[in-house]
């Protein structure tokens, strides 16, 4: 596909196309997919933290509270600020906050209440 790259999630092999110049998370969400947890979409909350293992890319500014300089060197980025410059392979690299864990427990549905409000109110702290 011209002007578009394939983004593959390493764990599952699931993939989707992302147009060049579009942010990976935004493109994923537009296609109705929930392969990566969705938070603020603005580089601030860390929910969509991923590690790029193959491919070239650029990013827009991301919160240093969630992506340190060392993280960035290691390919860790926020998918909402990630713009592909080739096909990409990436893995989820969440920090263990409640949103990320529950999204995974629910098989990527990423929504719903299990009746334990305290669980929702008190997300698991960062590792």
């Amino acid at each position, binding site marked *: 596909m011209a002007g578009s790259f394939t983004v593959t999630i390493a764990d599952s092999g699931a993939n989707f196309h992302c147009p060049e110049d579009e942010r990976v998370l935004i493109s994923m969400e537009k296609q109705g997919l929930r392969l990566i947890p969705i938070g603020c*979409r*603005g*580089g601030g909350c860390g929910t969509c933290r991923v590690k790029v293992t193959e491919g070239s890319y650029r990013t827009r500014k991301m919160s240093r509270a969630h992506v340190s300089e060392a993280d960035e060197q290691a390919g860790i980025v926020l998918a909402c600020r990630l713009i592909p410059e080739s096909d990409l392979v990436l893995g989820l690299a969440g920090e263990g906050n409640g949103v990320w864990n529950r999204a995974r427990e629910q098989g990527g549905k990423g929504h719903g209440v299990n009746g334990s409000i305290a669980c*929702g109110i008190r997300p698991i702290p960062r590792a």
Partner: protein
Amino acid sequence: MALTGVLRAGFVQFRVLEMDEALAHYVDHIGLELVEKADDGRAYLKGYDEFDRHSIVLREADAPGVDVMAFKVGGAADLDTFEKRITDFGLAVDHVAAGEQPTVGRRIGFELPSGHRIELYAEMARSDNGPITENPDIWRDDPHGMRALGFDHCLLYGPNVAEVTRFFTEVLDFGLVEKVQTPDGPIAVWLTSSTKSHEVAFVEHPEPGKFHHVSFLLESWNDVGHAADIISRYDISRDVGPTRHGITRGQTIYFFDPSGNRNEVFAGGYSYFPDHPTRVWTPDQLGKGIFYYEKELNDRFLGVVT
């Protein structure tokens, strides 16, 4: 005057990743006015229906989140009275000199058991572009964007909500308007110094000092719908709504600024008076309390903060 001591939530200073993008969001879309972009990089904004010079202060930084929320008190003498009461409660008080923010008088500051910095101040210049006071038209210039009247309140996430509640009610004389009560204590509280349903709210959260949202007041439920139209038209990152809260009864929509700080615009809500009882929610009904129509919470609203 019947309303004394702490008057209201006066200003909030928070961090953004890219200032130009943030200003386009808050000025063009939410409808605030840019008062000044200062030499130190901070930007000062206000809503069209606010008398004071500014209520929102943006600071460009490497990570979004809140620097300080400040409350305006009735007079300079209140700063001395509250300094003693805050110190007696056991919190350390520091001082910010007049002029640290343009036209703002001296401030006293302290850190809550939730990890948030709070300040009190008595003086700020009157805006020369505030509401008209003589034979007042309803506004000076056409409201634009979401037509926000001004800054209304913040919701802050952090630990020790029970202690924070005791501080606000016993030291700052706030009313506890609503709370979510568990057998272990309150996990969420809505507090006011005025007749508004809340000036500030707190939710129990393990990480200290987190920012859940800054809220702007709209005139009507219809304007909440208009805000939703703007959110879709300009691809603003939406969180939840339009919907209604059981708690405070406000009609609302949540979204994120371009740096990931959550915003709310809302209308409605009931009036509170100091003789009113606290309204109490049990955790099993919290879905309805937060989102009255959906009756369920979502993980992003609960867990995503800056």
